[in-house]
């Protein structure tokens, strides 16, 4: 297994987290489905996981970077699981509309659990290569674009969150944007 392969798999991981965030934002805008506080935490989990991949691409693969990605995805998965449990009892309703049969919090749990397994596999590949702790960074053309996409996605989350909640708390069941004067600020 070459260092270039794991580098590309890190690019894939970073692009995947960015795409998940872009998709969630696109759905929010297209269907006017505002994220609840737990939904925001799930997005923040994707962001924390993506930072691990970004560190790997910029500074080379390192166990600490993989640990960052795994812990970030774990925190996001905990928020997702909480929301799944809130709605798991029949008749307890759901939040938002489903996509391909599952609600977004279920998708978030599946993807974040998959991210943890993905990082474990990448760590295994790194160990098999003989560089158990650290590996020098690899330069390729796609990494800066993947990094830029991720940063844009994080900035979008920040702006969307500010538009919805300002710098205060978000309501549990948001109905509009604070910035546009259509939201309520009670929790």
């Amino acid at each position, binding site marked *: 297994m070459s260092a270039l392969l794991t580098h590309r798999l890190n690019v894939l991981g970073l692009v995947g987290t960015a795409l998940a965030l872009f998709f969630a934002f696109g759905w929010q805008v297209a269907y006017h489905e505002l994220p609840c*506080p*737990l939904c*925001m*935490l799930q*997005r*923040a*989990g994707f*962001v*924390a996981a993506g*930072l*691990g991949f*970004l*560190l790997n691409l*910029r*500074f080379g693969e390192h166990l*600490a970077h993989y640990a*960052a990605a795994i*812990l*970030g995805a774990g*925190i*996001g998965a*905990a*928020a997702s699981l*909480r929301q799944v*449990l*809130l709605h*798991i*009892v029949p008749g*307890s309703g759901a939040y938002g509309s489903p996509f391909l049969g599952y609600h977004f919090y279920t998708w978030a749990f599946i993807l974040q659990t998959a991210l943890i397994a993905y990082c474990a596999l990448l760590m295994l590949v790194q160990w098999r290569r003989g560089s158990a702790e650290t590996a020098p960074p690899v330069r390729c053309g796609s990494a800066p674009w993947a*990094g830029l996409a*991720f*940063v844009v996605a*994080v*900035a979008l*989350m*920040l702006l969307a*969150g*500010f538009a919805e*909640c300002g*710098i*205060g*708390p*978000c309501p549990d069941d948001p109905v509009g944007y604070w910035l546009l004067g259509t939201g309520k600020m009670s929790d």
Partner: protein
Amino acid sequence: VIIILPFATALVACWCVWRGQRGAALAWWAVTAAVNVAWLFYHATSKLNLGL
């Protein structure tokens, strides 16, 4: 609570990555993770109507 705080600290971490400051980037990642955990406790520790 300021729900957008983890996104702001993550952006600072991205800035540190871009500047080549690995230690600072990891520190800001840690702040991001800590805020996420704190917000998780705030929003997700009420009792569930489930027998777990």
